[in-house]
């Protein structure tokens, strides 16, 4: 807690600075060390004493990865993430809007179920959903993954968007509808343009899930053409064994895009994270 009415002593500030540095080091060191390893030529990786800044940096491990066809996996992950976000936002908008604006029988039950479903742990669902997906013949396909990810992420999407729509005054839509818009037009042309932050927050949740998910993807898909990046990295662990160069390089391929997205949009991410949970 900040205490604005009390000046902090220089000693306190120094202690704060020291604690903050330790926290930053704790959080980022494994990532920085991985990045550093991924840029070292193989002969330098195990050299003691270790250096953080490899000189000169080498891209040989990234080249190895491209030769083993990592591009395919990145593309698969990107496709799945994109369509999952699109589908979740579409369905989430409709459901969230209905919950925010209409009263209907069973609304409280629907809200309760949405919150309840959010707290079901994912790993306990994997085996049953695999059985179900196999029944539908959708295992080993990107379509199956998109549908599953959407199903997993829809509750949080609906919840975030429901919360956001509630903050938008109804007068705007009512005015638009008096002027002749239908409900859907009002949603599309009045509400959605005002919902940027809510949509971004929801999209961020979905995209980090879809891009990062390993547990679901490894269970549902086994063939190479539909392998997503995290599953590919898991397979690299077996394939490269103790060659940490390509392994850390693959790790970087996975985390750099998500960190960039996070840094750009972190404001929305934080609002969605706390809004979606503390209200619940």
């Amino acid at each position: 807690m900040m205490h604005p009415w009390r000046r902090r002593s220089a000693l306190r500030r120094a202690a704060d600075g020291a604690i903050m540095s330790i926290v930053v080091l704790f959080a980022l060191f494994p990532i920085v060390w991985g990045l550093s390893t991924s840029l070292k030529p193989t002969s330098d990786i195990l050299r003691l004493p270790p250096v953080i800044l490899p000189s000169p940096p080498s891209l040989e491990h990234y080249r190895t990865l491209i030769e083993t066809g990592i591009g395919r996996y990145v593309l698969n992950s990107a496709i799945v993430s994109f369509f999952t976000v699109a589908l979740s936002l579409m369905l989430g908008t409709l459901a969230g809007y209905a919950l925010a604006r209409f009263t209907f029988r069973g609304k409280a039950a629907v809200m309760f179920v949405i919150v309840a479903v959010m707290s079901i742990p994912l790993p306990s669902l994997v085996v049953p959903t695999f059985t179900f997906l196999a029944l539908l013949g959708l295992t080993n396909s990107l379509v199956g993954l998109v549908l599953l990810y959407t199903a997993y992420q829809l509750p949080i999407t609906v919840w975030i968007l429901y919360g956001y729509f509630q903050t938008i005054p109804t007068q705007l839509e009512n005015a638009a509808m008096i002027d002749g818009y239908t409900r859907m037009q009002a949603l599309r042309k009045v509400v959605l343009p005002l919902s940027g932050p809510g949509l971004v927050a929801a999209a961020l949740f979905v995209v980090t899930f879809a891009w990062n998910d390993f547990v679901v993807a490894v269970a549902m898909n086994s063939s190479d053409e539909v392998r997503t990046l995290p599953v590919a990295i898991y397979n690299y662990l077996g394939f490269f064994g103790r060659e940490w160069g390509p392994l850390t390089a693959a790790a970087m391929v996975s985390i750099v895009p998500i960190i960039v997205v996070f840094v750009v949009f972190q404001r929305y991410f934080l609002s969605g994270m706390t809004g979606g949970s503390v209200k619940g």
Partner: protein
Amino acid sequence: MLLRAVVLVPYIIAMLVGSLLLKWIFSTDGGISQMLLGPFGLQDTAILADQRGAMGALIFNALWRDCGFAMILLMAGLKGIPFELYAAAEVDGASAWYRFRRITLPLMRIPIFITLVRLLIHFVNVLTFSLVLTGGGPNNATLTMGLTMYRMGFVDYRIGQANALALMVFLFNLVLIFILLRLFVDRRGIAA
């Protein structure tokens, strides 16, 4: 604000990748932990090959990834406490510890409850940490329920058994949530 983003970085990257990076840190083939332990005469310790060490590494992994997440949730709760309460208590001569116990803790009941539920459910079920970092070993010392389920279903292809275990794990989660509810929600039914 920057610090908030930094502590969340381990949380937003793929769990699998985070565990991979930590595995490299703990690894015996030139992992940096050997170096750091060297001055204490422990340079030959293979952390992940020792039962206790592997469990420690697993816990470290969980802490590393989820501390930031817990921090953000709790911070949102802290921000909801009116600042005047602290000022008034201080005027009345309440010590820092007393203010914490009598203002912060009671008002943080719901945020703490929510954070606990989310963390507990996550940790009870997670399988990626142990799958990547320790592989459940050595000697099954770090085998978790999630990992057992995964192996049953997708390594041994005993789908029926895995389904049964999944249901049991799910029920176990419900019991945990129920216990937490009982602890945090008083008889009037309002958690406050």
